[in-house]
């Protein structure tokens, strides 16, 4: 009884308002039936009992119908509200209040006390005397060794080759089952400043270990969305031998500064602007996006860019003090998912 009453009540309300009936035959039948029954007093307002919700209707088709109808009405109301707001803004003209800024996760980021203040002397001293000081004082110039995990497949090999064209003064060597701890002293004796190891799993590269050599920190990243040159749409011709410029975006916290400096120390200091090439490391929400572009200034303010080179995304897993020693090394920062990923608005880099 109650159900039928509800149905009729609901349909009564809607049938009065809607002229174009896009409902099923049942609906129209019920409407006619209802109209003939109580033609004297067509109910204007819905005769729902209070506390009724659409989800309580047991008939799936009917429930779906009620829901779509409710949704359409919500959409209509929203559109009407928007139009009204727009009219009001136009009516007010200059006196209109400024538009409210939509909330995004980046906007709502939890305040991080480790964000570096540019005037901070202690942090400035710390950075001036850390392991990268010799690079930033122009005493050493980078020399990179790129290798992979053992027995790499084609994709990883090609990524390493492309990385070596992107990073100047880099050499690719095959990893023939050698232990990293044995490679590192040999690299140091041959004046290498950085070691990059691309880790591979199931024929795709999925990790990156970046170790600054004399005794510097080792960063371990998770690598995803790797796109080789031929997979990049609308790309330009291969990169030339010119030294690229570097852009480091959004490395604001102390940890971000360390990682940013690590990336910066991969490239030589003197970018050749003739080459018009730029490597970008963009950090957003703890993901670091690497892109390599060639740019051209069409006018003072308009730039055209072509993407060259490989592109991939990195996420920092750990930063270890000292060269690669995952078992006995001391870690400066480790990503602990159950402790650090509890808030969607807290980022660490």
């Amino acid at each position, binding site marked *: 009884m109650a159900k039928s009453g509800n149905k009729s009540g609901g349909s009564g309300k809607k049938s009065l308002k809607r002229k174009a009936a896009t409902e099923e035959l049942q609906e129209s039948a019920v409407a006619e039936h209802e109209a003939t029954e109580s033609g004297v007093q067509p109910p204007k307002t819905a005769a729902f009992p209070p506390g009724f919700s659409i989800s309580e209707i047991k008939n799936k088709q009917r429930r779906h119908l009620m829901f779509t109808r409710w949704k359409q009405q919500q959409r209509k109301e929203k559109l009407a509200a928007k139009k009204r707001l727009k009219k009001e803004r136009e009516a007010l003209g200059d006196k209109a209040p400024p538009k409210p800024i939509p909330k995004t996760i980046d906007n709502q980021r939890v305040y991080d006390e480790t964000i570096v203040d540019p005037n901070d002397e202690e942090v400035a001293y710390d950075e001036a*005397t850390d392991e990268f000081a010799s690079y930033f004082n122009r005493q050493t110039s980078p020399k990179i060794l790129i290798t992979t995990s053992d027995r790499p497949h084609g994709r990883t090999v090609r990524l390493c080759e492309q990385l070596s064209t992107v990073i100047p003064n880099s050499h690719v060597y095959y990893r023939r089952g050698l232990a990293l701890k044995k490679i590192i002293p040999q690299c140091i004796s041959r004046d290498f400043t950085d070691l990059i190891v691309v880790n591979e799993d199931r024929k795709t590269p999925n990790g990156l270990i970046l170790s600054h050599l004399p005794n510097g920190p080792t960063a371990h990243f998770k690598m995803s969305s790797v796109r080789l040159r031929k997979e990049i749409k609308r790309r330009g011709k291969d990169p030339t031998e010119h030294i690229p410029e570097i852009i480091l975006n959004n490395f604001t916290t102390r940890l971000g500064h360390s990682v940013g400096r690590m990336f910066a120390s991969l490239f030589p200091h003197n970018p050749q602007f003739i080459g018009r090439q730029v490597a970008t490391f963009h950090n957003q929400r703890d993901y670091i996006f690497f892109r390599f572009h060639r740019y051209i200034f069409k006018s003072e303010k308009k730039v055209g860019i072509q993407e060259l080179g490989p592109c991939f995304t990195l996420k920092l897993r750990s930063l270890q003090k000292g060269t690669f020693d995952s078992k006995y090394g001391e870690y400066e920062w480790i990503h*602990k998912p159950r402790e650090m990923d509890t808030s969607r608005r807290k980022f660490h880099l």
Partner: protein
Amino acid sequence: MASAAARWNHVWVGTETGILKGVNLQRKQAVNFTAAGQPRREEAVSALCWGAGGETQILVGCADRTVKHFSTEEGIFQGQRHCPGGEGTFRGLAQADGTLITCVDSGILRVWREDDKEASSDPLLELRVGPGVCRMRQDPAHPHVVATGGKENALKVWDLQGSEEPVFRAKNVRNDWLDLRVPIWDQDIHFLPGSQKLVTCTGYHQVRVYDPASPQRRPVLETNYGDYPLTAMTLTPGGNSVIVGNTHGQLAEIDFRQGRLLGCLKGLAGSVRGLQCHPSKPLLASCGLDRVLRVHRIQNPRGLEHKVYLKSQLNCVLLSGRDNWEDEPQEPQEPNKVRSEDTETDELWASLEAAAKRKLPDLKQTQGALQTKRRKKRPGSTSP
């Protein structure tokens, strides 16, 4: 003003850039103290210990082999002495009856006379402990007894007033199930109060208890925790357990009577470099390479109490053992200020009374209460 309030700091932390930081957890302030006014990486603090006379003096051992004296009363470095001999940084610093005991990485343990001037650069006593020392610890009950241990350097207990040979020399455990020698890497040592026992934690994630009083030189108890080297250890106020930290920032409380894991503490993101528990309250101060000092509560309930971001990598921590944590006692060092305030307020009172007699008498009462409250709340020091 900052220096005057230095005595009320709860925690003292030494950093890799040579700065000694005093942290006041009540006021949530951290103050930097440097000997030369500028941080210097050559003076990286590698050992901290309380000096003579309660907790009024701190001995700071730096990487350039100097030991600096810092006074907490005045908040300045008072003097320093150079302790040459051996190679490497300080691995242990202790103070006993007017002498200073230092031990360096290469195994030279020296006892120096604690003069005001560093006139005599000859040590009173020198011992060779063996290379690769990771820790030297003094027995708080017997100041002339020290224990040393390190990488491939077994635990040895020395009596500085006795002979040149160690009093107790630990033996390595039996070969493991593959008949391979178990390597030794003692990272931290503690003496257990009330008995002769020692607890060590190793770089191969073992926690061992040794008993010199028993005939066996091998450890009496051995447990494992985690997969990573344990870098720091401290005894809990209860007396039955230790808290250890490893290179991954995991802190665990281990009962050394049964060898059982009691619980873990979370929050650290980097390698633990220093740990210290308060002698009576269930508080633990921890510092590490992630540049944050954390104070945890160990029991009821277990959790984080304070977290302070200090901008340099932290090497060692000293927690003040005083009981009046909460109350900041009225500072008697500012009598002048208090007296001048009194005269000012007396004048104010006089003017108030004259005015208030005409109007509401109870307003004067509330105003008086407010005045006193404001006087008490005036902070002594400024922010760093």
